[in-house]
């Protein structure tokens, strides 16, 4: 094993470019690998193949097999060894191939990764990032379209984030990697090929790990979305504008912690709130947001907080997934119900 991966000198691209969300994560990973020799990528098929979604395309060639590691096909093994590497001072970024495959690693993430800092009273920590492509809409077979974010958000010790745009994807993956806390980084795989402007020189701090963002201003209803449903919320807002209703759209970005303040500020203004996510509504992020908004905006609310999300069924077959996924029509229906109160 070489201790320093041989690679050619890299000049990082700068300026603003139009990138797909997948390529934006790739550029963010590339920058993280170049900036910190302790950063490692680990996962199945992330080497020569570049990952099944090509998110790690070209990175093994550039940084070597010791830093972009094709692991054995065992998710608990990936997470468990990542924890050990983190205890040794490394910053592993694990790729889980699909949402439905994270569960063999669920034990390592929830009983070990999430608790190391707490158990040691801060003496040790495990700054591991777990990248999980999630969500549906891509016509895939079973276990390839799920949204398990609530299962992780329910675990103290983890940070849960999800980008909705290429710019956020680029910045957020770097902020996740520099965070001393473990971060579950949910990538909206249905949006991997959506394009957007990315400022490659955007500052990398920690803002996106904690802060939601108002991505469209409005006055009559607040649409809270994250990851894949932000685009749905924005399209719904356009349709509502035609109807003469002004919707404010909040892109949550972080699910743990939820940025309560940004949501509350918006709902106190609009008086109505609709939460949109692909995950089942029951015990989902929307339920938490509804509780928080109700508690803090009770006297500002014109209507109960409503949710548009998955039903309490396993993710359905691909041929019927578009009947299951939150659509603009279902969002408009929820807004109508909110206005009917």
């Amino acid at each position, binding site marked *: 094993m070489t201790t320093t991966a041989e690679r050619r000198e890299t000049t990082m691209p700068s300026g603003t470019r139009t990138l797909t969300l997948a390529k934006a994560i790739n550029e963010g990973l590339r920058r993280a690998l170049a900036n910190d020799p302790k950063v490692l990528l680990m996962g199945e098929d992330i080497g020569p193949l570049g990952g099944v979604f090509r998110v790690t395309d070209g990175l093994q060639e550039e940084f070597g097999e010791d830093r972009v590691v094709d692991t054995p096909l065992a998710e608990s093994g990936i997470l468990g060894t990542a924890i050990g590497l983190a205890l040794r001072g490394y910053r592993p970024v694990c790729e889980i191939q699909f949402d439905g495959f994270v569960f063999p690693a669920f034990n390592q993430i929830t009983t070990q990764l999430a608790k190391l800092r707490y158990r040691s009273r801060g003496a040790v920590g495990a700054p591991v990032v777990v990248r999980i492509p999630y969500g549906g809409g891509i016509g895939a077979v079973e276990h390839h379209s799920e949204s398990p974010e609530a299962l992780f958000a329910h675990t103290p010790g983890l940070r849960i984030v999800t980008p909705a745009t290429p710019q956020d994807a680029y910045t957020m993956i770097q902020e996740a990697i520099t965070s001393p806390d473990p971060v579950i980084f949910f990538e909206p795989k249905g949006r991997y090929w959506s394009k957007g402007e990315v400022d490659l020189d955007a500052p990398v701090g920690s803002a996106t790990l904690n802060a939601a963002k108002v991505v469209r201003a409005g006055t009559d209803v607040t649409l809270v979305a994250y990851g894949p449903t932000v685009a749905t919320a924005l399209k719904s807002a356009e349709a509502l504008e035609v109807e003469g209703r002004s919707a404010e759209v909040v892109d949550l970005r972080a699910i743990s912690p939820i940025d309560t303040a940004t949501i509350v500020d918006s709902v106190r203004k609009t008086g109505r709130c609709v939460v949109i996510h692909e995950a089942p509504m029951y015990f989902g992020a929307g339920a938490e947001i509804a509780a928080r908004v109700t508690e*803090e905006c009770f006297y500002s609310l014109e209507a109960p907080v409503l949710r548009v999300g998955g039903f309490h069924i396993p993710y359905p077959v691909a041929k019927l997934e578009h009947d299951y996924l939150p659509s603009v029509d279902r969002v408009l229906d929820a807004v109508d119900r909110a206005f009917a109160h």
Partner: protein
Amino acid sequence: MKHETDGGDVPLLQLLTPDGTRVTTRGTKQYRDLAADLTPDRLRAMYHDMVLTRRFDEEATALQRQGELALYAPARGQEAAQVGSAHALRPQDYVFPSYREHGVLQVRGVDPVDRLRFYRGSDHGGWDPNEHNVQMYTVVIGAQALHAVGYAMGMQRDGVVGTGDDAVDAAVVTYFGDGATSQGDVSEALVFASVNNSPVVFFCQNNQWAISVPTSKQTKVPLYRRGEGFGVPGVRVDGNDVLAVYAATTEALQRARRGDGPTFIEAYTYRMGAHTTSDDPTRYRTSEQEELWAGRDPIARLEALLRAEGALDEAFLTDLAADAEVLAERVRTETRKLHPGSATTIFDDVYATPHSIVAEDRAWFESFEAGEPPAGPVSAHTPAHPQGGTR
């Protein structure tokens, strides 16, 4: 049904018979040579650690009975496996234990009172892992085996394997029991260690009982062969023979530090006590078996050797008895004083950086504890209406 795991025909590395006599058998020369390092001073040091480990066990068990510990998992009977293997470690090596390795912690110098913080319920950990290169105890069975392999993969990347420099080359030992070998994480750890050729020693203490379930219900093949299919060589050693344990672990560690990869050691031993202070072994095993193993006590075995070789003088024994008393007294008095700190410390160190949900929970709890009026909405926001919410 006869299981191969019961012993009998299965090879067992032994350098010391149960009555404390050194034995020479075919194929053990390399181990006898390694054990030859053990001067009378070093043997006495091992004996010292084994006796103190047992005394610690007795004091901790008594404290649990007095209600001072929530639980305790005795190591009685496993002192040779733990102390012998730990004496093979160098300072730069790293240990990933399960939760019964009190003898390993004794050798590594983890404070006896710190060792009980976890069992008292005043801490989830108890010591700084990097102070003695011993991770905290892991309760989820087998999970630590993967951490050990990952840590060893880090050592490889740090260039501290196979340099030939004794002060630099390092390895990892992970401890687990016979029951843990059934966990997927242990098998995955063997896979990762093997394909990465990582410097890891898988040290399995087969104490024959996973709480109430015998090893015969965990495996049909002797555990030392568990690594074979993974490409990890194995050795089965008499876990109550401190010389054999030391020699086998030394060999495995040397191999790992050289860069020649992982080894699986099955230390065949017996849990003389209960699984924990909450267990009742009379429900699942016979007193005949317990008596049989009482005759194979690892401490008595080393003591017999030391006496036979004239290495136990009265001065040493007097000092040892005094050390044991000091340890016991300290454990008795200091453990009772262990306290986790104020209630608000439950909010500390969940995250390294501020997390608003923990912050609001803490703020609410602090005002509640202070007897202040209902804090209203849980977030830091000014409530829209003075009534606010309640919790």
